[in-house]
Each structure stands twice: as C-alpha cells, then as structure tokens.
C-alpha cells in the first residue's frame, strides 16, 4: 500500500511538471503571448474582457496559480475558433480515440502473443527467417505510410472500405453509445484500427518470443518436463503465464503512448479523435485547444505509465515499485 502511494505521488509530480512545462511553453515563447491567445477578429472590448477572464493582465506567477487552479477544476478555457469550452471538444473526441486505440491494441496483442509464442518454438526454421524480418519491417515503416498503402489499395482501388471519417456524413444517432455501436462506425473503424494494429503488433510479437525463449530454459520448466507434463500443459500453464508479464506491461505502456501517437493515423483517415484535434488546433493557432489537448494526451500517458508499473509489481511480487530502477 505504501508502494502504491509512492507511485501515485510520483505520477502526480510528473503531471504537475508537465502542466508547468506546458504553461511556460505556451507563454514564454518569442512574441506577444496575448497575441497567441487572442485572435485579430476580436473587438477591443472583447479583447480586454478575455484578457481579464484568462487572467492574462496579471503578472506571470499569478497567472500560473490561476492556471493551476482552473486545471484542477477541469476548466481548460474556451477554443478561439470553435468558441466552445475546450473540455467539451476534447471529451467529444476522446471516445473516438479510445475506440481506435483499444481495438488496435487488442488485435495487435492477441496476434502478437500467439504468433510470438509460436515463433519461440520455430527457432532456426525458415518461418522464423521470414517472420522476424517481417516484424521488424512493420516496426520500421511510418504508420501514416502503412495507412496510405491500405487506403489506396482497400479503399480507393477496391472500394471495400470508406476512405475516412468515423461516420457517414450527416448521420444522426440517439446517443453517443448508439453511434459507437452502429455498424457504420465499426465499418469506418476497421481500416485505421488495422493500420495501427499492423504497426503495433511487432512489439508484443518480438517480446513474447524473447521472454518465451528465456522462460523455456528456466529450471521450473525442466522440472515440469521431468514430471512428465504434456507439452501443451507446459506451454500454457507454466511458460506462457510467466512470459506474459512483460507483454502485459507493454500493453499498458502502449495504451498510453498510442493515445498521443495516433496523431498521424487519425490525420490519414480523417478520424475525429484527440490527435486530430491537436493537429488542427496547432495549425490554426487555436492555443487554448492545443494546450488542452496536449495536457489531456500527457495525462493519459502518465496515468498509463503508472498503471504499467503497478501492474508489473502486482503480477511479479519480486519487483518492488518503490525502488528506483
């Protein structure tokens, strides 16, 4: 419990540091920071009003306190371009990113774990000679390029899948849940999820194979073999269970980093998620929105890093969380 508390405190520290860094980044850059935060189309009165509501007329340390206070209340300001609260925009995009990331990760890890375990037994065969370089190639390819290939092939040339978006334009749904469980949404989800999964599967595959090879040489496997257990029982009950440990950790880490790493895939497939909100906000100089999106992506990353650490300690009691790595 003490270790748990220490890890949570550490995550809180990192979150605070990231928030502070973001604050400084967006305000201390060359040029007039108020210009960053206010567009030209505002009247002088609106400008003064906004300056006051953002606290931008106050000295920097005071601005910082106001900023931290509103962050804690979940108030991320108002988007310049959309004139809506930043939090609303982000919360609308979050389910799309989550659906894409989780689907892709589940596909990638289900495939990677099975294929990796299989490859551990195929040591020195032709299959291994083809599969390992193939896995390395998918890790070396830019995600957006994989997306472009699939898009031009399965969408434009063969017309099987839609070329972008999350739903057919103009479609309406009773609720967010109804939208996300609709056949139309799932149909749009396949291609981007497949692209992301293709990019992600290399890691669990190689990791599973490596740890499997390591575990298979362990004494307890030799023991199990001497006890006369069947090959299946040895693999499933003894080896795979232990080999899954680093893979489970990688899954949690992957969930955190994919939330931010999806930026390019969401752009290629015009997928209305967090990453695309960030990119278009940055391109349109919509700084409150860019800042909010950045903080939200970072928060997911920090929390998932923490979950990965705790998961690792929980699954393997030999590791202590509190100890510095």
């Amino acid at each position, binding site marked *: 419990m003490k270790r748990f508390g220490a890890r949570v405190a*550490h995550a809180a*520290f*990192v*979150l605070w*540091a*990231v928030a502070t*860094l973001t604050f400084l*980044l*967006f305000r201390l*850059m*060359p040029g007039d920071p108020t210009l960053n935060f206010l567009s030209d189309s505002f009247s002088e009165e609106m400008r003064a009003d906004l300056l006051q509501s953002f606290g931008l007329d106050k000295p920097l340390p005071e601005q910082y306190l106001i900023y931290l206070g509103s962050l804690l209340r979940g108030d991320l300001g108002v988007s310049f371009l959309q004139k809506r609260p930043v939090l609303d925009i982000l919360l609308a995009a979050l389910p799309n990113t989550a659906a894409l990331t989780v689907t892709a990760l589940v596909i990638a890890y289900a495939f990677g774990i099975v294929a990796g375990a299989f490859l551990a037994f195929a040591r020195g065969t032709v299959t291994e000679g083809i599969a390992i370089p193939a896995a*390395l*190639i998918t*890790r*070396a*390819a*830019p*995600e*957006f*390029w994989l997306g*472009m*290939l699939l*898009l*031009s092939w399965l*969408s*434009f*040339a063969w017309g099987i899948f839609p*070329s972008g978006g999350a739903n057919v334009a103009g479609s309406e749904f009773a609720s967010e849940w109804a939208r996300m469980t609709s056949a139309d949404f799932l149909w749009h989800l396949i291609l981007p999820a497949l692209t992301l999964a293709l990019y992600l599967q290399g890691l669990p595959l190689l990791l599973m194979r490596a740890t499997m090879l390591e575990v298979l040489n362990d004494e307890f496997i030799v023991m199990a073999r001497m006890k006369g257990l069947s090959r299946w029982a040895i693999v499933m009950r003894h080896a795979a269970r232990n080999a899954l440990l680093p893979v489970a950790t990688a899954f949690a880490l992957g969930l955190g*980093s994919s*939330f*931010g*790493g999806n*930026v*390019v895939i969401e*752009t*290629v497939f015009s997928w209305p998620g967090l*990453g695309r909100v*960030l*990119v278009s906000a*940055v*391109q349109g*100089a919509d700084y409150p929105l*860019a800042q909010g*999106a*950045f903080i939200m*992506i*970072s928060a997911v*990353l*920090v929390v998932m*890093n923490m979950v990965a650490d705790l998961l690792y300690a929980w699954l393997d009691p030999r590791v202590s969380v509190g100890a*510095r*790595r």
Partner: protein
Amino acid sequence: MPGASAVPRRPLPGALRASFGFLRSQPFAIAGLAIYLLFIVMAIFADQIATHDPREILFRGAYRVARYLPPSATHYLGTTAGGRDVFSQLVHGSRSALQVGVTAAFFVVVIGTLLGLLSGYLGGWVDKVIMRISDIILGLPFLPFVLVISALTRPGTTTLVASVALMLWPNTARVIRSQVLSLRERGWVEAARVTGCSTPRIIFVHIAPQVAPLAALYGSIAVGWAILTEASASFLGFGDPAAISWGLMLQDAFANQALSRGVWSWFVPPGLCIVLLVLAGFLVSRGSEKLLFPKLGD
C-alpha cells in the same frame, strides 16, 4: 622478391579482428551496414544520380506542366502533381534523411551518455535531479510535443532535430546509468580511485570506454526514430517546407490525391526508403546486441 609474402603476416589487432569475426557471423548486421552504405553513396552522389533538378517544374511542350506523368525512360518514377521528377526527389531525399538521422542520434548519444555517466557515478543529488528530469520527459507524448515545439518556434529541420534529441536522451541515459552503477564497483575502478585518479579521469578514461558500445547501440536506434519523426512531422505539415525529404514527398502525394488516382510510383518509393533506412538501424543494433550481451544469443 622482398614483397608482402616474405613478411610474416601479423595478426590484426585484437579489437579489429574481433569485429571482423563478428561481422562474418552476423548476417543481420552486414545487411544493415550495406543499406547504410547504399544510402550514404546515394546522398554523396545525389547530384550525379538524379536525372533532373528535384525542385524544377518540368514542362511538356509549351506552357503545359508535366504533371502526373507515368514512369518512363526519362522519368523513372514519373512526375508529381507539381510537375517535378519523383526519382530525383527520392535521391535528394536521402540527404535530409541522413542529416536528420545522424545529427539527432549524435546529440542523443552525447547528451544521454554524459548525463548517464554523471548520474551513475556521482549519485546523490546529481542523480536525483537528472532522473527526475528524465521522468518528466518520459511523461511527455513524443510526437505531440515535437509538433507543439515546431508550432511555437520556427518550424524546420533544426527544431525537429533538437526536439527529437530532447525527447530521446532519457532512454540512453537510464541504460548507461545502470551500467555505470555496476561498473563503479569493479576492482579496476576501485584501484584507480585508490591510486588517486581524479573523478573526471575515472569517469571519462576508465568508465566511458566501457559504456561506449551500449551508447552506440542506442544511437543506431535513434537514427531510425529521428527519421520516422521527421517524416511524420513533415507529413503533418510541420517540416521545413524548403527541404526535399521523403516525408514531404509523402505529404505532397497525400495532399494531391495520389491515393485516389492510384499513382503508386509516387507514394510507394519514399516510404520504402524510410523503411529500409530505419530497418538498417534495427539490424545493426540487433547484430551488435549479440556482441554486447553474448548471453542472449546462442
């Protein structure tokens, strides 16, 4: 004839011989080095290999821009929507890719190794501060951070390289640090300390050479990361618009309906080049991994 045959063949110096033997037993590493060599040659002789000026807008007859031409004897890979030669752009793109990859990797290795050495050997508050900073950086999302930095400063290659180096050094520093933690307890370091060696001398003369291979390993991975990041940032419109890079070529192709028009000769080759160059880094590091950690390979 008092020639080469008369002189007894002297064995190669140990390290050199070891690396030759290593290369022969490592087809992966050889393949990786061969790919590197190919692209280095391509970058050096880009002006001779390219058939056209990569920036020149080509014309077909009078006043007709030669856009979307299919591959032919004059244009090996056809032309772009802007009437530029794809093959020539591809060849010149190797320059910016190598430049970005190598400079970023250089800074990652230098910063990471230096901070890792200091952190591991000195311990105490130096270690605490460096590790806390690396914790914070590992809490920043990689690509979004690069994009935000590019947007808030002047977008360009320098900004990209700097932000990649800033984001990647913690991984190297952590590995070097843990290596140093075990090295500093070894007998010869102890001996150096006892004979009165200064701390900088112990760190840079006695310990640094031991961690150099490990640093090189992380460097070869950083080359790939930097190239992928440059490609992604360029694709999203945060690259140096004046440069000729594979990422910009892909962005150009994507923005000009190369996908729906099925102009494969335009958007497949730049991606393949990126894959090859990044893959080369993986292969080299996989090969040297076996040299560094002989226990893993068998």
